[in-house]
């Protein structure tokens, strides 16, 4: 298992304010890691740091030679401006090769072939000439994943990827990511609110609240008190038991009454509870 990326005790902050404290994290080939936490818990800051957009204020980030050369495949949140953007699917996907071009002005045949191959890979080759603004939410997401894969097919970093997708598109999206992860060994690093789904999808969880509260395999996470807190809010809305995660969450509801601090976490999880309701 090749090491792709390693954070050792890194801190990130803006203007004397620590947003992320003491995170150690390893990403290896074929990993599927989710970063969860409330709003403002430093998830996005950490992700920016991993992408190299922020310099750590302490600690260090090691990036494998391979990723340094190819860059990280990044799937940002979709912006308002993209809704009516006149660009063909091919133009968008091809722009993923930009990092490999450096300062050379035009794309070569090799990059165009890479873009075509990634369109095939995600099953959207027939949309090649379609306009990005005419696509459905799920199709847009596929196009943006294809673009990220043009940068590298080693590591995909996804920022709240299911925002704005309809329920069937969400399931399709998770299947696609799982396929890329299992069959093609693409390492996945996802920031998400969608607890209900990710405990079934990811291998490892990093739970953030400025500092890492939990980092380890999902199996252990669902037994931890952090997961109980986080899932507690969700459990009220979602009564479907049947797997370990929710059983534990069930226990948490009983504990909840006396624990004022946990209320807050519950609110954050409430957002994902909605998502789950839609999904099932």
């Amino acid at each position, binding site marked *: 298992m090749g090491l792709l990326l390693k954070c050792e005790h890194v801190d990130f902050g803006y203007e004397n304010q620590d947003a992320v404290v003491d995170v150690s994290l390893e990403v290896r080939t074929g990993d599927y890691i989710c970063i969860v936490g409330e709003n403002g818990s430093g998830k996005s800051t950490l992700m920016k740091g991993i*992408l*190299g*957009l922020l310099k750590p204020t302490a600690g260090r980030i090691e990036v494998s030679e391979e990723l340094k050369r190819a*860059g*990280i495949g*990044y799937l*940002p*949140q979709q*912006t*308002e*401006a*993209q809704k*009516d*953007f*006149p*660009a*063909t699917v091919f*133009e*968008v996907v*091809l*722009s*993923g090769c*930009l*990092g490999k*071009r450096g300062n050379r*002005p*035009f*794309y070569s045949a090799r990059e165009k072939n890479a873009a075509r191959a990634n369109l095939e890979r995600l099953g959207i080759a027939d949309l090649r*000439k*379609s*306009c990005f603004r*005419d696509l459905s939410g799920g199709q847009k997401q596929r196009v943006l994943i294809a*673009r*990220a894969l043009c*940068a590298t097919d080693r590591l995909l*970093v996804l920022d709240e990827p299911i925002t704005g997708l309809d329920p069937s598109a969400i399931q399709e999206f998770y299947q696609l990511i799982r396929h890329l992860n299992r069959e093609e060994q693409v390492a996945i690093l996802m920031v998400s609110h969608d607890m209900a789904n990710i405990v079934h999808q990811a291998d490892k969880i990093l739970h953030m609240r400025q500092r890492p509260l939990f980092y380890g395999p999902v199996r252990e996470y669902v037994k931890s008190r952090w997961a109980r807190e986080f899932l507690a809010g969700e459990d009220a809305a979602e009564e479907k038991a049947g797997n370990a995660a929710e059983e534990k969450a069930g226990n948490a509801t009983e504990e909840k009454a006396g624990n004022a601090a946990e209320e807050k976490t519950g609110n954050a999880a409430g957002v994902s509870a909605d998502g789950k309701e839609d999904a099932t």
Partner: protein
Amino acid sequence: MIGIVAEMLSYPFLVRALIGGILVSLCASLLGVSLVLKRYSMIGDGLSHVSFGALSVAVAVGWSPLSVSIPVVVLAAFFLLRITESGKMKSDAAIAVISASALAIGIIVTSMTTGMTTDVSSYMFGSILAMSREDVALAAALSLIVLGLFLFCYNKVFAVTFDESFARATGVRVSRYNVLIAVLTAVTIVLGMRMMGAMLISSLIIFPALTAMQLLKSFRGVVAVSGVLSVAGFFAGMVLSYVYSTPAGASVVVVDLAVFLVFVGIRMGRERKRKKGEAWRAGEKDRKRAGRETRAERP
């Protein structure tokens, strides 16, 4: 038609206006594609008002108009970009405040020194006589830079326009491109303003991109078509203005508006046709199903 154009070309000031104007509209339309798609259209409008203020002050004090306006407007461009990017203040409100203030200062300075004469009117609504030889040379240099940017950095311009976060993550220096585009826009506006008028210059930036977006499905297509539309629209507007003795800037804007409406019309026509087609196909299915059902009912 050819006769009229030949007649126009016999006046040196009109030749200068045509050359300068065509170069400025080309730059404005290319930069406009990026600005409009990034929701920065208002920056163009704000800058034109700042440019009016700076120009009024320069004329009142007796300095050369370009050497004062260009730095002031470039500074304003930095500032407006910063406001829009930081998102701390409501950027549309901030730009409106800056525009109105610059306009007010310009008007007061002009009326205190020269009085509200034809000068103010010509800054506001443009004058065909405004293009000097110096302006034309500057417009040529500017369009070389803008064309170079769109030719050699096309892919980066696309990436920065489409998705700043992704571009940043792949190592593009996004803010550098934003600043470059804002500065080039500032210079374009200063150059075009005295001919097109402070109130009308932003249309050169917004109209071509908006028009091209109606029908074109690719970014490359939108860039190319808005460049062509802008140059053609400017030329047609100038001919119109010459033939009917209408103000030059306003004539160009009216031509742009007409082309825009035609494009919107075609797009709506296409959409209706597509919907009709879909409805017809759906109807056809219903009819077939109904046919089958009635046949099945018959013993």
